[in-house]
């Protein structure tokens, strides 16, 4: 009898001692501080006026790039271009994304969304991020001659990659970033060698010699009409998404070549993004079957019921493969549509 009572007391003690160290505890102050740094970072990268040069390393490849960014009465503008190799450039202005790529001087634009190319509900995104990543302040460092605060974003499971960020002590601008695989090895790194935050950016810094005059300022009237449209009914189901990924977009867009419209689903966890593309093959061979990788990006392709399923994202290979295998085609989900 006495022994039994003792046991009960021991159990009660164990139970009461569990909760303070368990998951019911509120986030430690370090995590809160790291979160604030992240919020400031998003704000800084979107709202500051800056010009800088950085090194981009991805596996064995090294690139130097320059970025010019401003946010003024005309909205947010950004010009990003390569400093070595064939000239490549991305200009973002007036809700347009214009890319200049080397092959045949191909230029293309995106106007498929009325939203800004840089929208983001900071508290919402970071709130979402916190449930699947652990935020930590690692200490201090120096990047591009500037004092930096080092933040770690560690995934809580194996579905996503981790990041390490070096943020400017003064304004939280990102000075260096590293994407780490599950063993903590860098997969992709970006590091500024020079960064200037200015009250105003000189207009000439946005002028691209490669792009036709004022293409970045082209008004909406002479741009092609948007064709991507939201999908309300789809025969496709993605079951058992990795936890934390939510669907942020489901569009149908037509290729310029007049092919079948492609369905595009985007899933995001606040940091990583996964795209699923679904295109009817019409007897043609599949574009990609199996896995492929470039730096931080993984892709997995599969043919399902005569459709090409392609999953792409900056997540581990197992994640894109998992999603590709979980996709199901169920035409009975569709209401009868006219022939």
């Amino acid at each position, binding site marked *: 009898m006495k022994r039994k009572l003792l046991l009960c007391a021991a159990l009660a003690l164990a139970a009461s001692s569990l909760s303070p160290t368990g998951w019911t505890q509120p986030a430690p102050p370090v995590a809160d501080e790291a979160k604030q740094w992240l919020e400031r970072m998003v704000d800084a990268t979107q709202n500051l006026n800056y010009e800088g040069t950085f090194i981009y390393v991805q596996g064995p490849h090294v690139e130097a790039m320059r970025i010019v960014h401003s946010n003024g009465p005309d909205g947010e503008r950004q010009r990003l271009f390569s400093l070595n190799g064939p000239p490549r450039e991305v200009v973002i202005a007036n809700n347009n994304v214009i890319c200049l790529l080397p092959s045949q001087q191909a230029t293309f634009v995106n106007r498929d969304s009325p939203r800004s190319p840089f929208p*983001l509900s900071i508290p919402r995104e970071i709130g979402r991020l916190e449930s699947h990543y652990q935020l930590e302040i690692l200490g201090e460092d120096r990047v591009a001659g500037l004092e930096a605060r080092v933040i770690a974003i560690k995934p809580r499971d194996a579905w996503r990659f981790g990041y390490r960020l070096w943020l400017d002590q003064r304004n939280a601008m990102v000075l260096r970033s590293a994407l780490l695989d599950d063993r903590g090895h860098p997969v992709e790194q970006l590091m500024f060698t020079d960064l200037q935050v200015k009250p105003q950016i000189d207009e000439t810094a946005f002028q691209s010699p490669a792009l036709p005059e004022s293409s970045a300022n082209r008004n909406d009237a002479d741009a092609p009409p948007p064709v991507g449209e939201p999908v309300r009914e789809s025969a496709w189901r993605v079951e058992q998404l990795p936890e934390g990924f939510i669907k942020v977009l489901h569009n149908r867009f037509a290729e*310029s*070549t007049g092919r079948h419209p492609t369905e595009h689903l985007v899933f995001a966890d606040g940091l990583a993004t996964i*795209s699923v593309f679904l295109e009817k093959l019409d007897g043609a061979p599949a574009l990609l079957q199996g896995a492929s990788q470039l730096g931080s990006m993984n892709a997995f392709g599969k043919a399902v019921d005569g459709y090409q399923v392609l999953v792409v994202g900056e997540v581990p290979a197992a994640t894109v493969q998992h999603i590709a295998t979980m996709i199901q085609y169920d035409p009975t989900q569709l209401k009868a549509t006219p022939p």
Partner: protein
Amino acid sequence: MAEKTAEQRPVQAAHDVAQVDLAASQLSAMVDGELVDAEINLALRRLSRDGDVQGRWERYHLISDALQGHLPAALDAKFAMRLRQAIDREPVSQPTTRSLPTWYKPVTGFALAASVVLAALFGLQLTQPDAALTSNHSIAAATRAPSTASPAQTALLSSSSANDANEPTDARLNSYLVNHNGHASRNSVNGMLPYVRMVGYQTNR
């Protein structure tokens, strides 16, 4: 609606009337720009098949133009027929775009015509891309070489060999990748990186 009445075979005459009325009201709505896309496709298909509907289309346009004061000096009564001939000559239906300067290749979404992005993403694991691309023999050899060839390797080889012959395949996969990055930048706390990746892929070939 029309499909349901079609089941009632005995009242064929009533069905035909309903069908014609539906087509007519659809045409009228299309002339007025009030049809949704799916219905436009249906109406256009009818229009291209049916001579009666074509005549109707012409009349509706005439009415609409007259009401809005847009009548041309001379009327072309054979418009619908010529339109159909023109449609027949088209290889595939193309999305309509306005005429633009030649440098500018407007495409939908983030599609693009270059093959570089694809080569970067889907060709990275090829150890000897040139050899694999120039000779079928070496492709076969490469696929056979590691007895435990991963799906990734075989897929890469087959997709790269297809790329050579099939430029549109490249363009499609490219557009997927670029499209993904465009959306990634919108949905990630670290919104700068996806654009950096877009620029960075190009020389990874």
